[in-house]
């Protein structure tokens, strides 16, 4: 139960409290989803966990390590990988380059060896590319490997973003609305991949999602939030039939 723990995290933007004392725990190998109406603070919670926003209160623990107050760029090395709601890929780079940046936490850069492209660096580069190839195989991105991202269709970009997060070899993968903008077929693929990520790669998944079908299919447990506050926690079926949740979505 203690793999990933969030204790009473809060975020205040001036007078607005976007997230108010949210707590939950995720076990290793679990697929945990956060649902809630728009503006509920779900993406803010993600931004807090991936340390893009500093916490206004509370603690975050991953695998025994306290992430609270860590610098934003260290969160990758700590084992957190994420995708973004509005795709934040590197538009003017190829898919391969995007995925290689995902491996950045596993490379130590040395200016001199880079400027001269010494054999040690060359070997490391080949190694990285081999690692990226396994991700490309996993997600069937072979056909677009050398294409520039800004010419790719939306569905493919979402997959590339997923691939980039996987290249980080994270312990905890944060997926921000993985099915938004995808058609039924692509959403099916996404569901299979999420399962494979957990089963084959052993990565714990934390998701924000609106598509209830996907949520029920894939999640082990669900947390519902509204207006920054937790409403209900349990299996998908339990949460979906919870009276407070239904009020939040449908109104009284």
């Amino acid at each position, binding site marked *: 139960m203690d793999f990933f723990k969030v204790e009473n995290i809060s975020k205040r933007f001036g007078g607005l409290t976007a997230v108010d004392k949210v707590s939950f725990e995720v076990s290793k190998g679990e697929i945990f989803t956060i649902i809630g109406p728009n503006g509920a603070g779900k993406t803010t919670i993600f931004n807090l966990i*991936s340390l*893009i926003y500093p916490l206004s209160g509370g603690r975050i623990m991953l695998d025994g390590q306290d992430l609270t107050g860590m*610098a*934003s*760029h*260290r*969160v*990758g*090395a700590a084992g957190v*990988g*994420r995708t*973004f709601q509005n795709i*934040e*890929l*590197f*538009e*003017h*780079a190829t898919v*391969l*380059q995007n995925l*290689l*940046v*995902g491996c*950045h*936490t596993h*490379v130590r*850069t040395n*200016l001199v060896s*880079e*400027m*001269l*492209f010494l054999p040690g*660096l*060359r070997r490391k*580069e*080949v190694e990285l*590319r*081999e690692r990226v190839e396994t991700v490309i195989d996993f997600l069937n991105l072979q056909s677009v490997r050398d294409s520039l991202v*800004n*010419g790719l269709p939306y569905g493919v970009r979402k997959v590339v973003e997923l691939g*980039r997060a996987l290249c*980080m070899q994270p312990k905890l993968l944060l997926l921000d609305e993985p099915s938004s903008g995808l058609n039924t077929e692509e959403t099916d693929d996404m569901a299979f991949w999420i399962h494979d990520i957990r089963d084959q790669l052993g990565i714990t998944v934390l998701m924000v999602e609106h598509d209830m079908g996907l949520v029920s299919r894939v999640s082990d447990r669900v947390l519902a939030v509204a207006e920054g506050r937790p409403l209900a926690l349990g299996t998908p079926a339990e949460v979906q039939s919870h009276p407070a949740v239904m009020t939040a979505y449908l109104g009284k």
Partner: protein
Amino acid sequence: MRYIFKTHHRQDLQLFRDGFEASWFLLLGAALLVAPFVLGNYALSLLSFIFIYSIVGFGLMLLTGFTGQMSLGHAAFFAVGAYTEAVLQARGWPFVASAPSAILLAAAAGIVIGLPALRLTGIYLAIATMSFNFIVEEALARWESVTGGNAGMAVPRIKLVTESLPAGVPMYMLCLVCVVAVGLVVRNLLRSPSGRAFIAIRDSEVSAQSMGVNLAYYKTRSFAISAGITGLAGALYAHQIKFLGPDQFTLLVSVEFLMMVVIGGMGSLHGAVLGAVFMIGLPELISRVKVLLPSAIADQTGLNAVVFGVLTVLFVLFEPLGLFGRWVKIRTWFSLFPAYRKGMFKRQKSYAKSERLA
């Protein structure tokens, strides 16, 4: 059409796409090596300037084209390199010692402006670099004891290790060696993790951070390397032009550098070189064409500026990929003939996300 069939990751990493491209570059190298025996002094000096400005282009391209940090202050780094070289050589230092000093001092200047600029983007960064340029220019003009102030200072003939080199061919060779070396270094940087980090910073700072890219570290590094490279160009420039004055390093010069890389083609090293060729070649071309024009359009300086400015605007409007982009399109047309499709390089119009709000 040639299709490059790769069987090993090493092929992805190599310098030239295939043997074909490598042989073109070898041919170019051979031509440049033979040039001193074929061309006159004036043409050689033009080529040397092209090499020098190509080096500046590499530096500026690294920072602006690849890391996305706009700089309107590169003339400051150019100046630091030039004056350092001039002052040290006047004291008897050989090039093998004065040039690295010029590079290091310029890189330090890059860090001086890079560090406070870390949190700045877009227009704020441009303004900060502009102001930095202004301050450096003014400081150089006031520090008369070292730089000779507004009266300027003469630059001694270059001393490589022990002896002064005669002017002309040796200087040309030195510039050639430098431009090739810098080109290789930048190319290597760009195919290594640091280079990818730079591109990541340019395209999406937020996700770059999530991938573990330390923004402060890499931005400062980019500034320092870019400034250092420009400093080396400045050092060579000092010897080539033989006389330095603060008015050679004004904001207008920074603007010209930027216009040069934009016309050449942002985002590619070839663009830097093409931009340099353009910038040196344009006044030459204009002075040859001038004799054909009515004398009403006689003013030399004015005409250069107008053509340069108008061409910048036209390139941005109609050929955003610059001269290199145009070259790639022409080359693709030939290699795909007759299968070239008109919309192949069509830009995806994307409406820029507002800098101000969500």
